[in-house]
């Protein structure tokens, strides 16, 4: 089963019901391997600005996304938070085509 194919719709659906979803401008994902060799999923959460969400709100969103992904991805899911400005800058600085870019679930 290509679990990654199911990640995108799962994230899109989850986004519809996320708390504070107006502060989230993108959800993107990358297949990854954890330090012990197990498959993992890295989810980038892009927010409007650094002050957009309190830490407890971030944890609540992570919990909701983890729950939504649990039915389509059985391995560990982890999150990285960034602002829209940081996302754009990061893309601009990444010149190495060998590095896979995250796949947006919303755009």
């Amino acid at each position, binding site marked *: 089963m290509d679990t990654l194919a199911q990640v995108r719709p799962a994230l899109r659906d989850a986004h519809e019901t996320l708390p504070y979803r107006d502060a989230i401008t993108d959800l993107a994902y990358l297949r990854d391997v*954890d*330090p*012990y060799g197990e498959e*993992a999923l890295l989810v980038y959460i892009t927010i409007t600005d650094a002050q957009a969400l309190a*830490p407890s709100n971030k*944890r609540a969103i992570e919990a909701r996304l983890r729950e939504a992904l649990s039915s389509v991805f059985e391995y*560990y899911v*982890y999150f990285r938070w960034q602002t829209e400005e940081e996302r754009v800058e990061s893309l601009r600085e990444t010149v190495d085509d060998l590095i896979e870019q995250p796949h947006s679930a919303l755009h």
Partner: protein
Amino acid sequence: MSAPAPKRLLEQARQLALREKKKPIQMSLRRAVSAAYYAVFHLLVRDASRSLTRASDKRLRLLLPRAFVHEEMAQACRTFAAAGKKPAIIATLYPGLVIPPELSGVAEAFIALQRARHDADYATHRNWTRTMALSEVERAEQAFLDWEKVRPRSNRAGNSVPAPAVIEAARLFLAWLVFQKKLQGR
């Protein structure tokens, strides 16, 4: 010889994440994430060592922390995470065990922070942003707050202490951090 002070490490993590006023350098952000993980690591190792020894066992309290293994601690935390499966030995010996949400929060934070620390120290192909690093520092700070609510402690000097069932769960968690590998399959 003195053990690293968890709270100082946590403060240092935030300082490093905010070290450069404008564009942060990768080294500061990566060290911030690493310090955030080690703050929680040393907090749990310290309290586990205290939980398993008497206050008079000063040498033992210096020795015991060397027995903790990062990977095994993460594995132990999976048992106490919100969706964690309880091994048979725990289900049998602690049939009424209820894991407080704060304890699950600490366990989940440890797993996430360990992952972040690996990325910060070894995944050099991926850049860290300040928001990424600060989010991990916040995760560690929340773990400290959560742990304070469940941490086993004496009620000397009028300290409020968690309910007995909470202390029992927290002490089991601390022991599981170091003995999980030996006990998991029993």
